[in-house]
């Protein structure tokens, strides 16, 4: 394990350095695409912490993302407070949402909980449309402040945010807490019998996942300059987050980043196909699930541990 870890660390540092140098050799358009991909990467990693480790099937990652995004956007539009305060407010709202989701998760298993999360997204979506006066309804709302109007600066913000999130989430998954979460995800009764407080750990996992989803959602809004149902709440966005995490490899955390970048770049490359690009991306994801259920990173890691 230690042997893998040290080269892995260097590969990661190298990748981060190459990514950080991207503004010098990549066009502004691709920078913009990558910027959203990095926020998606954070969505996918937070989802993986809940699913891969805590074993909670969350079909509504966009419930947490949307709360963070709209919380930040509404505060900014109504009060004009500085961006960091709005982000904190959005993240706090998302954590509150995470606690709300954690309640049923402690009582329900598998598909039942999955349904609650799905319904949570539908409700959020409906409420946003109903309270159109505050939220801008189906059209969405524009925020008065943006992170930056300069593409490279936005890019570095997103990259830095993703790397920090990755380090924290990955570190957490490899700590004692990650192991306890994994144990309670696989067999809650046994984990509790071993003396671990399953409830406390699961609630904590929900809060952490919500915190990063909400923050990333808020940052995405301040990058795009708008918050709309189609960019942060729609179920299809949630499905993309799940696909990214599964493509990259469940239980790897870092796989989420790879999956998200791949998914968004693939969507961009296939743009000439028009409508059909969603079909092709879904087909590729389905093929990966059928033939390489461990995802990219899982496949690489497993191949290495076998050798």
């Amino acid at each position: 394990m230690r042997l893998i870890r040290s080269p892995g660390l260097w590969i990661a540092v190298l990748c981060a350095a190459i990514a950080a140098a991207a503004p010098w050799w990549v066009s502004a358009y691709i920078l913009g695409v990558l910027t959203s991909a990095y926020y998606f990467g954070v969505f996918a990693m937070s989802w993986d912490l809940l699913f891969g480790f805590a074993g909670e099937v969350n079909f509504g990652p966009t419930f947490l993302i949307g709360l963070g995004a709209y919380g930040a956007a509404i505060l900014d539009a109504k009060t004009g407070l500085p961006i960091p305060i709005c982000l904190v407010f959005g993240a706090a709202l998302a954590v509150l949402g995470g606690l709300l989701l954690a309640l049923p998760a402690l009582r329900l298993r598998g598909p039942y909980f999955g349904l609650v999360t799905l319904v949570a997204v539908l409700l959020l979506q409906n409420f946003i449309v109903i309270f159109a006066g505050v939220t801008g309804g189906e059209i969405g709302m524009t925020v008065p402040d943006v992170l930056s109007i300069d593409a490279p600066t936005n890019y570095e913000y997103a990259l830095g945010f993703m790397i920090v999130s990755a380090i924290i989430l990955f570190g957490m998954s490899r700590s004692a807490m990650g192991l306890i979460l994994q144990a309670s995800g696989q067999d809650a009764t046994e984990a509790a019998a071993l003396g671990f407080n399953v409830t406390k750990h699961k609630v904590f996992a929900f809060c952490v996942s919500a915190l990063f989803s909400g923050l990333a959602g808020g940052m995405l809004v301040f990058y795009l300059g708008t918050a709309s149902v189609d960019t942060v709440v729609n179920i299809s966005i949630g499905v993309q987050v799940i696909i990214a995490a599964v493509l990259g490899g469940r239980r790897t955390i870092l796989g989420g980043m790879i999956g998200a970048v791949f998914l968004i770049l693939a969507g961009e490359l296939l743009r000439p196909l028009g409508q059909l690009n969603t079909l092709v991306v879904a087909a590729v994801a389905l093929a990966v699930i059928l033939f390489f259920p461990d995802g990219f990173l899982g496949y690489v890691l497993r191949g290495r541990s076998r050798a």
Partner: protein
Amino acid sequence: MSLFLQILIDGFAISSLYALGAVGFTLLFGVSGVLNLAHGSIIVVAAIVGWLAAGNWGAGPAGGTLIGIAGGILAAYATYFVVVRPIQTSRAIPRDETEIFVLTGTLLWGIMIQVGLDYLFTDNPVTMVPLIRGVTNLGGVHTPTNEIMIAAICWIVIGLLWLLVNRTRAGKALLAASINPRGLTLLGFELSRIYLFVWTIYGVLAGLAGVLLASFLGTGSANAGTLTASAFSIVVLGGLGSVSGSLIAAYVVGYLETITAYLIAPTLRPIPALLLLVLVVYVRPQGLLGRR
């Protein structure tokens, strides 16, 4: 008074259709443990095939209905053989994770069908010519005769399904598979054959629901997601795997939606049902008539 009757009649027709759509979904889950998130897409496939057959291929309303049902069966088989069966038999997927893989796989499959249909036929809803034309006066409310016939067909088919499951040998095997699959294999039944049988029934039910929906409200690829979500919520409300629970839940949801649409506002239509669902899931997670 006439508004009350109107709600009663419209709600009944919609609820019957919901019941038909949800029964197949719940049967599939009860017997083979599969939650098919491509459900809405399969319904839409049947609707579009039926519409094509009735109009472009000149099969007429009755022929279109039959060909649409055949389309539903084919779509169900494709889902089973391309997505569900490979996942169930895959060695690389751990047993306890099959469920989430089936969910994700069928979800992706549903998206593929939806986008494909969207590309071929646009997302405009298709409307089939009803089997019976004309209007019937029910206590002062002018109701399309087609609406009455849809409710009747739904109940006849659900009744036939009840007979099949409870009174025939093949149906009893289905029932046994939902209670104890291992016991059934010990008795010499081929489980894969039973699964194929339940997917066939599912295809017929989903196909019929699609064709009837097309002749009643019209439907298109844009509706696939909503159709899956409403079937899923009805089934969970009634209790996963419980057919009678799903029937009751279909009427609860159908009437709740109709009442909201008529008395409060059409835009709020789905909300009370969703809130009820959250409440039920919190208080009684196994649903109205579900077993743990």
